[in-house]
């Protein structure tokens, strides 16, 4: 399997006017296509910070984070998020004033995919995540948490990237919906060759992952499978 992301001695410090907090300390690891990675750890251990760095929302204070050998500091991180990496959040973060369909179409519109094609692809991925067609024209506020999370996943994969980053994707879901989402993430890695990286507290999610990392006080360690 080929490495898609590699972190070498990555540290991250949150700096305010009055204090500095080291959120990540010399994290080194790599991620490959076709695998599901779980990063577990207590709240405040630095998991979400690491995921945000992997998403290119910021750059490490120290160390190197490279995507297929290209240093993230030097690359166009907006284009990286637009075309290669998608993020799924625990709080879903759907556009509240767009319909389900429009939410899924949005990243494709940003990529200048023609409206017809974007709509067809959105329908395809909404069907893939098991969302009934009756919900397509509803606003996110009108559907359940599990359905919203599925819309968020559909949005992430419809954009056609190769890296899927998920921050507690099952945190707001019941066990039945949780299983659907976990199966979906595994399928994306194993069948569609995504590198799926999931930050989670959930043992079931961790159990389904191919590789499990543990994070404690900003230090990453291998728990299983690497």
């Amino acid at each position, binding site marked *: 399997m080929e490495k898609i992301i590699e972190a070498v001695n990555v540290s991250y410090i949150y700096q305010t006017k009055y204090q500095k907090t080291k959120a990540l300390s010399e994290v080194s690891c790599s991620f490959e296509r076709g695998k599901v990675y779980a990063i577990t750890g207590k709240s405040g251990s630095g998991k*979400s*910070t690491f995921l*945000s760095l992997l*998403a290119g*929302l*910021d750059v490490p204070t120290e160390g190197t984070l490279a995507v297929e050998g290209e240093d993230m500091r030097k690359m166009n991180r*907006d*284009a*990286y*998020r*637009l*075309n290669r990496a998608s*993020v799924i*959040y*625990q*709080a879903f*973060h759907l*556009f*509240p*004033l*767009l319909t389900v369909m429009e939410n899924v179409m*949005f*990243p494709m*519109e*940003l990529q*200048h995919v023609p409206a017809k094609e974007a709509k067809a692809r959105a329908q395809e991925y909404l069907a893939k995540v098991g969302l009934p067609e009756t919900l397509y024209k509803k606003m996110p506020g009108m559907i359940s948490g599990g359905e919203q999370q599925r819309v968020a996943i559909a949005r992430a994969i419809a*954009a056609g990237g190769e890296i899927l980053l998920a*921050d*507690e994707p099952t*945190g707001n879901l019941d066990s039945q919906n949780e299983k659907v989402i976990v199966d979906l993430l595994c399928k994306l890695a194993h069948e569609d060759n995504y590198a799926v990286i999931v930050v989670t507290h959930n043992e079931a999610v961790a159990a389904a992952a191919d590789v499990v990392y543990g994070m404690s006080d900003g230090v990453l360690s291998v728990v299983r499978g690497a």
Partner: protein
Amino acid sequence: MKFFMRQIARNIVRHRKKSILHILIGVMTVLILDVYAGNMDSTEKQLADLPNVLEVTARISTLNGSQREGMTIREDRMMGVRESVYVKDPVFTVRLKFGFGAFTVEEYKENLNHYGMGMNAPEGVSGMKREEITWMDGVDAGILETAEKVCILDTALMEEKGYRLGDDVMLTVFYYRYAIEGSEVFIEPLITDTYRIVGSMQIGEYMGNWVPPEVILPLDYMRGAYHSQGIDFYADSGFFTVKDPFQLNALKAQMHDEVKFLSVITRAKPRTDGNALTIMDEAFIRSAETLSKNLALLRGMLPFLVAIVIFIGYLCSYLSLQSRREEYALLRSLGTGRRRSFFLLFGETALVEAAACLLGSLLAAVFLRPAVGVLALSGSMFFLAFLSGAAMAILALHRLSVMEMLTKKD
């Protein structure tokens, strides 16, 4: 671009309550700016129009200011006034006595029994209106500005003597010579000549101190007559209108330095020398000062008003973006660059405020009826200042951490 515009339009519609609120605030701001710009425009116009409303006139007098007629105004001073670029409608007169026909000095008692004036405009006869003169066909008051041998006769005198317009009349003219000091007046022979009667006059309400004239001759003809007899010419009264009251200082400097007029000194000895100039400019200066102060105040308010509109733009956008921070963060996390995110939000504001600007200007045009320039000024001032404030608020969003905004709830 198509997506960009569609997205902006969609956002405006989706956030319609906020858009309507923004439009209302914008309309009110535009109306306030229209009132302000309208005030400034009206004050500027009043100031520019002031010389037409409040004419500034000037009158030549003796040094102590007691006498405005019957003076000796030197010819060089008179010509200095008439040729000045700062002077409009200068009027000079010279007093005369005359009799009909030709006669000698010894025969003056029987013949020299009429009063006359030389002048360059009908206004030289105090109280006489232009319509009180009946002109011969093809002639008007402009003939008094020439040196032609013509005259205007009193209607009653014409009837008494049996003259009609267009007739020629022989007149013997005597002139007044005033002693420089004291009140002695000498009447001495000047010229006997034949004049074409080009006008007749019937003075309704004569307001001069002297006996009203029964004949008027062109001033420059009289001047020539004095010269031809080797006599120094003096006008006996003179006044004018200031051409551009905003150039009063230049006029005063010229009248003082070049034409050698003095200011009135009330304690000066009584003399007949017409060497002082009084400019009636108090009302004009007072009004101009008041208007200038108002204008300066209004202009001084401009930076503050612009700052207030920028602040309103900033505040409106800031408050509206507070509830859209997550939307912004999401846009960024989906790969929308800072520039693109900025223009998405800025374009939305620009469209909404353009609508506010149009609506506000329309309402102002209906209710305030300002000039088009005023509408353009206040509209563009609003648009630029408001959008500057909005841009600052949007740019401030860039400082927020997308990472923190999206993981806050997690």
